[in-house]
């Protein structure tokens, strides 16, 4: 990568939402009380709009540059200069982060607008938007940070905002607990990230290039090829630890357990944080450090394996869920698994592309479900929904489009991105046939449960009317008529973003049409200068960036070669479409035409498989029993140890000291004092006797003198 171009406006992409958060956070209560909710909404949405405009400007500026020069830098200030660690606050934009900031600010902006409508009756309106803006600032810091430390600041910041927003309705303790669970599980992952970061810095410092600035790491990373750390190859260790952080943030096995619980937060939060942005941070991080991961094939294998297992496992759980948001939560975990599969087989661009398309259709799905929940006064159980397509047409059509996208039906966006991943899983040197097979099966299951959701919610007869369940205590029991009697479409400020996102779900797929279908791989080409060094096999390429241009030319040739080379790609493409159609057909038969009774499956084998899947394979219970209760038991044991043994020792020492001092006191009282008193009383006894010499009579004194003289006189004679 050649030298960056210095610009001064990147900092405002982050500072604008930060200022919005500060104003809303500190003054929001007063503003809302004085002037209502509109100023709050303006203060919140305007900065995001500013950030979006600046992101577009940055993107435009990059477009105008030659591919190997696409690199903007905005240095803010000195930060840490200790020893050989030099990190400054600086933000950079390259093709990868340009994509990310467009997604974050664009979809974030749409969700801000949606939230104005969704959270309309919320008294803590200002607090919600303060947190939402703060989240935007943190996420943008994560994406734009030019060093791993700045990235980590954003990483932690989004974790904090996620906690605050999940537990937004904190008065219900279940929500607060869900927020804590998210934060704690995240933290476990962050430990891995920090260890990886430290190990990386250590390794680089050992070879004389200690730095945490990403572009500098990229320059010198190949020198770490043979370094070892306590017997492990350093790149493998570092990347495994960083991946642990990614599993926490991006909800993969084993740290995904917080994401379904996070549905306790308001639906726009689920859409923004747990679909489009925060959970993708792990994928982004791997993409950003792809050159490092390319040096550690072991880690890539681990990533692919965990990714596909998570994808499959989460899809099976999603099949049995009855809460509209839980289905989407597990579907998010599953799709994130696909993204990690892509990263793990070396198809970094495909993973980022799936991140991009997923952001659109998943956000649309979540916002659509929010629209449904809002219209039904916080009813979330799909068994009490149905037939909503005639009451909420816009929500229905956008939801349907996004579901077709996630099911991987052409020509919607999900088809291109998911298919690319599956093809790379088969064909990449790091891929494997079983990954493809399991991935295709998961895609089929995805299609099934997503269409199950569509049919249960929007088709058939409306099964609602028992009044609102869920968080909705503020409505009491009145509603309109009794309970959720006659649902109606949501207001324009909510359906507007739905439409925009659905359009995205239709159109963005065409940004990366594979060569096999005559396309130009535009998205992948755009990302090539950043990700291409990662595509290269390790143990070569000492010039890093210079090779990128040559690689671009290679990639273009490769694309053309594909068309001639591999008809197998068409076969696989056809297979995945067929599987998706099969899933949709099964869902139609079970839930719409009702010709297959779902009870056949849920009661098969004594209902054990069904209940296992419904209870999410009891993973939460296992974690509770093993880790949580284990830790509590350990701490109780240690507390008892402290109380009995340690305190016992201390008290024992104190008791012995007291006994010794009592003995000493007695000795002091009787022996020592006795001796002193004895001396005193002897003196007094002598004194009493001697005193009698002092008679006061002059005579006796004179007699004494005379007798003394006589004695002296005659003493000589003796």
């Amino acid at each position, binding site marked *: 990568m050649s030298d960056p171009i210095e610009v001064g406006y990147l900092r405002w992409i982050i500072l604008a939402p930060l200022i919005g958060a500060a104003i809303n956070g500190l003054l929001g209560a007063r503003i809302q009380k004085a002037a209502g909710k509109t100023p709050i909404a303006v203060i919140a949405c305007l900065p995001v709009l500013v950030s979006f405009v600046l992101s577009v400007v940055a993107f435009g500026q990059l477009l105008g540059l030659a591919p190997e020069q696409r690199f903007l830098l905005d240095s803010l200030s000195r930060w840490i200069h200790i020893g050989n660690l030099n990190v400054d606050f600086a933000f950079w934009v390259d093709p990868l982060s340009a994509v990310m900031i467009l997604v974050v600010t664009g979809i974030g902006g749409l969700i801000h607008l949606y939230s104005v409508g969704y959270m309309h009756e919320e008294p803590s309106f200002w607090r919600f938007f303060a947190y939402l803006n703060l989240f935007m600032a943190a996420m943008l810091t994560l994406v734009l940070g030019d060093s791993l430390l700045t990235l980590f600041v954003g990483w932690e910041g989004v974790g904090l905002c996620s906690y605050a927003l999940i537990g937004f309705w904190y008065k219900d303790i279940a929500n607060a607990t869900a927020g804590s669970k998210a934060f704690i599980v995240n933290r476990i992952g962050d430990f891995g990230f920090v260890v990886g970061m430290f190990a990386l810095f250590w390794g680089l410092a050992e070879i004389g290039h200690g730095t945490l600035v990403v572009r500098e790491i990229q320059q010198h990373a190949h020198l770490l090829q043979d370094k070892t750390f306590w017997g492990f190859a350093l790149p493998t260790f570092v990347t495994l630890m960083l991946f642990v952080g990614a599993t926490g943030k991006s909800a993969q096995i084993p740290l995904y357990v917080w994401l379904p619980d996070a549905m306790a937060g308001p639906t726009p939060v689920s859409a923004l944080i747990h679909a489009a942005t925060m959970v993708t941070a792990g994928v982004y991080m791997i993409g950003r450090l792809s050159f490092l991961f390319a040096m550690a094939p072991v880690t890539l294998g681990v990533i692919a394996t965990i990714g596909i297992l998570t994808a499959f496992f989460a899809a099976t759980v999603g099949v049995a869920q009855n809460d509209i948001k839980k289905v989407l939560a597990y579907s998010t975990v599953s799709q994130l698994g696909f993204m990690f599969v892509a990263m793990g087989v070396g198809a970094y661009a495909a993973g980022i592309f799936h991140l991009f398309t997923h952001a659109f259709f998943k956000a649309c799905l979540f916002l659509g479900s929010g629209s449904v929940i809002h219209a039904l006064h916080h009813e979330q159980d799909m068994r009490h929904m149905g037939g909503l397509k005639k009451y909420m047409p816009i929500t229905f059509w956008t939801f349907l489009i996004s579901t077709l996208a996630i099911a991987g039906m052409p020509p919607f966006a999900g088809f291109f991105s998911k298919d690319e991943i599956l093809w790379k899983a088969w064909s990449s040197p790091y891929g494997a046939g079983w990954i493809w097979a399991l991935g295709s099966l998961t895609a089929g299951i995805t299609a099934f449960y997503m269409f199950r959701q569509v049919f249960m919610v929007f088709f058939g007869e409306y099964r609602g009317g028992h009044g609102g369940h869920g968080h909705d205590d503020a409505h009491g029991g009145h509603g309109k008529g009794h309970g959720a009697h006659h649902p109606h479409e949501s207001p324009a400020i909510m359906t507007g973003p739905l439409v925009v996102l659905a359009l995205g779900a239709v159109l963005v797929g065409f940004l990366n049409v594979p060569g096999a279908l005559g396309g130009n791989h535009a998205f992948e080409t755009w990302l090539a200068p950043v990700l291409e060094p990662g595509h290269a096999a390790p143990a070569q390429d000492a010039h890093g960036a210079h090779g990128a241009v040559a690689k671009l030319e290679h990639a273009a040739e490769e694309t053309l070669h594909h068309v001639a080379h591999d008809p197998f790609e068409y076969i696989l493409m056809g297979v995945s479409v067929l599987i998706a159609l099969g899933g949709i057909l099964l869902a139609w038969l079970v839930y719409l035409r009702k010709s297959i009774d779902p009870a056949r499956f849920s009661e098969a084998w004594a209902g054990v498989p069904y209940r296992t899947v419904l209870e999410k394979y009891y993973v939460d219970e296992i974690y509770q029993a093993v880790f949580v209760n284990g830790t509590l038991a350990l701490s109780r044991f240690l507390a008892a140890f402290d109380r009995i043994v340690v305190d016992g020792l201390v008290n024992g020492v104190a008791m012995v000291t007291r006994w010794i001092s009592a003995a000493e006191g007695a000795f002091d009282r009787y022996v020592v004092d006795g001796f002193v008193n004895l001396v005193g009383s002897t003196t007094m006894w002598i004194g009493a006797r001697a005193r009698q010499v*002092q008679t*006061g009579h002059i*005579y006796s004194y004179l007699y004494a003198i005379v007798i003394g003289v006589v004695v002296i006189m005659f003493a000589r004679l003796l």
Partner: protein
Amino acid sequence: MEIGLHHFLVVGLVVFLCGVFTVLTRRNAIGILMGVELILNSANINYIAFSRYGGGGYDGQVFSVFVIMLAAAEAAIGLAIVLGIYRQFETIDVEATDTLRG
């Protein structure tokens, strides 16, 4: 009869004994002081006698002059003390000055 040394010594002794007796038996403070004078003068007699008969030169006689001077000073101080006693006790009877009893 030749008057020899021992005659003077005996006289001195007699004076000494009178002086001691006076000191020990007088109730009057001034009387006690007179007794002290007698004792001093007996010592003087001894000095003179040895100076005349002992062959020690005139040292004894010179020393007696010192003793006389000393006796005078001492009498002055003694009388001052007696005056003080009189002021305190309004009597010079030494039986009255027994307040320093132990």
